[in-house]
């Protein structure tokens, strides 16, 4: 079934952009993502053996993130994330692996959001703290608060407002639209099921996934212009994990009905 999913993904890649190299890389990313899921769950669960999982797993080959992405660099970076997390799962030196993952994710996120341009050009003007409009409004709010003593004004209206903007951007990252553009509407269903399952059976190892998602999100929103596609490529191994985790628990009829809706939406002009 995994092979069927990979073949489906590769075929769709060829149909979408006709580039064999990108097709191979995308399929490779899907393979490592699925492998990561196998490895991760094998440690405590035998979810893979469930008979309900396999037929639906084929449809993971249709996930747009693995069929439409065409930026070779970011696909390779995402494969790198998979390899590093796999390294973490197999090595004895967990702390070193975590440090490596963290540094890699931060740098990858900076590239993804355009804060660093290839090869090593740092774009300070894109940093959220240098947003002129936000800074202008902070000054304006201060000016409009002349009735307050200067110290109080400065405490209330200061550049910490940028942190609030960052939080808002993180919240805006995980909209339904972004999720279904990346994974199709149908996969939001197992994604939620997977998250719920892991929350119910909380395990320390799940923290790794949550922290990685948070780290990427936080690093990406440091830039004024968040590039959604690149961000979701980086997030793909972790979010796909939850999709695969939840596939076992979905109602097949609802899943297939949602798949039809997904096709309608995804093929819309």
């Amino acid at each position, binding site marked *: 079934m995994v092979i069927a999913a990979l073949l489906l993904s590769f075929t769709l890649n060829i149909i979408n952009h006709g580039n064999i190299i990108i097709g191979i890389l995308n399929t490779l990313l899907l393979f490592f993502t699925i492998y990561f899921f196998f490895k991760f769950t094998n440690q405590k669960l035998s979810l893979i053996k469930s008979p309900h999982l396999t037929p639906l797993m084929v449809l993971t080959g249709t996930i747009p993130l693995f069929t439409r992405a065409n930026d070779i660099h970011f696909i390779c970076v995402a494969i790198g994330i998979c390899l590093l997390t796999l390294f973490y799962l197999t090595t004895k030196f967990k702390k070193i692996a975590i440090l490596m993952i963290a540094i890699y994710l931060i740098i990858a996120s900076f590239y993804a959001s355009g804060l660093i341009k290839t090869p090593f050009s740092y774009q300070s003007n894109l940093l959220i703290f240098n947003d002129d*409009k*936000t800074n202008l*409004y*902070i000054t*304006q*709010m201060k000016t*409009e*608060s002349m009735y307050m003593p200067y110290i109080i004004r400065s405490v*209330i*209206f200061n550049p910490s*407002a*940028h942190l*609030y*903007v960052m*939080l*808002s*951007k993180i*919240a*805006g990252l*995980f*909209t*339904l*639209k*972004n999720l*279904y553009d990346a994974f199709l*509407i149908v996969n939001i269903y197992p994604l939620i099921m997977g998250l*719920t399952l892991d*929350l119910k059976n909380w395990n320390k190892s799940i923290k790794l996934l949550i922290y990685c998602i948070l780290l990427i999100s936080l690093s990406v929103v440091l830039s004024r212009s968040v590039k959604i596609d690149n961000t979701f490529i980086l997030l793909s191994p972790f979010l796909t994990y939850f999709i695969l985790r939840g596939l076992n628990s979905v109602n097949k009829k609802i899943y297939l009905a949602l798949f039809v*809706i997904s096709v*309608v*939406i995804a*093929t*819309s*002009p």
Partner: protein
Amino acid sequence: MFTKKIILLIIFIAIVARFIKLDYAPPHLTNDEIGAAYAAYSISKTFKDGSNKFLPILWQSHGGYGTPLAIYIPLTSIVIFGNTDFAVRFPSAILGSLTIIFIGLLVMELTKNSKLALITSFLLAVSPWHFSASRWALESNYGLFFIVLGLYLFFLGLNKNKRWAVVVSFVSFTLSIYSYYTEWLLTPLIVLSLIFLYRKTILKKKIYYFAIVLFGILLIPLIFSFIQNRNSTRVTSEFISKDIVVRKLIAEHPNPIEKGQIITKAIFDKYSSYVSFDYLFFYGAKILPKENPYQFGFFLTPFIAAFIWGLYKLKNHYKENSNFIYLLLIVSPLAASITEGELNNWRSLPELLPVGLITASGVLFIWDLAKKKLWIKRLGLGLLLISFMYFFLAYFRHFPLERAVDYQYGYKQIALYLSPHYNEFEKIIIDQRFGDKNYYYIGVPSSYIPFYTYLDPVKVQNARYLTNGIAFDKYEFRNINWASEKVEKNYLYVVPYDIIPNPESNLKLVHEIKLPNWQPAFNLYSQTR
């Protein structure tokens, strides 16, 4: 007990704050408010609206036809308090405050948990968007009130077998439909959900059959009025297919299947925006300009964590009723999602109800979880206090300063100047534009001026239509082009501040209208002085 008293006190303060400075924040009556206010004033004097229709059901407003309760609710307070901003907004503040009380009663009826009921009321009381909505004469706020009241009475009737409550609940649902267009779709969906989810009880009792039939009968006048005006009502003119981007795509892909796909995708995309965390908890209230970082959502930002917890743990508090809340969460943004234009928080106001119920559940869960961890409670309360303080500052100080132009600020001030000087001028010509040379908007001074100057509505009903405006009494509302304008003595000209008359016309500035931030807005010119 102490906590309950504190929560009650805060709810009380938040309710009282809904009535303070109603004529200052928002800074001016909006386009929609003045349309409804003027129609209400006109009906109160002549039983006819501005377009000469006798006691209309759907009435002609600036952008199509408005719903009935938008005019009939503020009518009484306008009769009592006169043509003031306070009179126009007072009923909304009352209904907004009552919504806070009834949502608590609804939760009590659904869960029998008084703590949860208080927290829910508290959440709504301090919700930036509900706070704002209660200070506007907002039809969608009336609609929300009738939905909450209807639901409370429905569950009261269901749980305690009170027949009168069942009947009144369906009347309330009807009134919600008479209040705002969003409820035309939402309320029937709520009623259908209730019938479906509680069918075991409903189908056994005759009173529900009677209530449902009554619901249908009461809607007949509205349906007839809609059919008569179907080409002008907002229901037909604001469907998502009228959206600029969607329209363009449809024109490029006329195939019916592709057209269906485009519309479906547009609805999904919009729905996604309406249910996104950033809209609900960061910027949905849209109090300050878009680029200002100090934005507020429907609920204060720290409650986002509680909302997520609430989604997960709702069943713990609501048991079998949780399905209804989830359903409410799904259907409440539907009506807003099928309409064109930018995200509209008026249309999505009903989202306050399910999001509030779920968030309150999460708050209580976290509160109970943190029983012994005082630092979590202190941190939560601290964040809450800080964000509420920011909201208060933004709302009462910065909002009137930064958003006055968007509210057509200045027309009321022009009217207040004209009242004592009315007899000094033979003709008063008011330019319909406002803003500045970067962008002039078209305003509706023809509604503001007669409202604030108590002009006899019969004169407006007999208005003359000009090629580029409207005229009644000694007023003309049209664009002024100084190059072609024949300037007369004893005429008063009102223009945006940067439309400066030719020096040869010998016009003198007689009065200036300034925005709350002291920027100029309008200049009044005449040759008389």
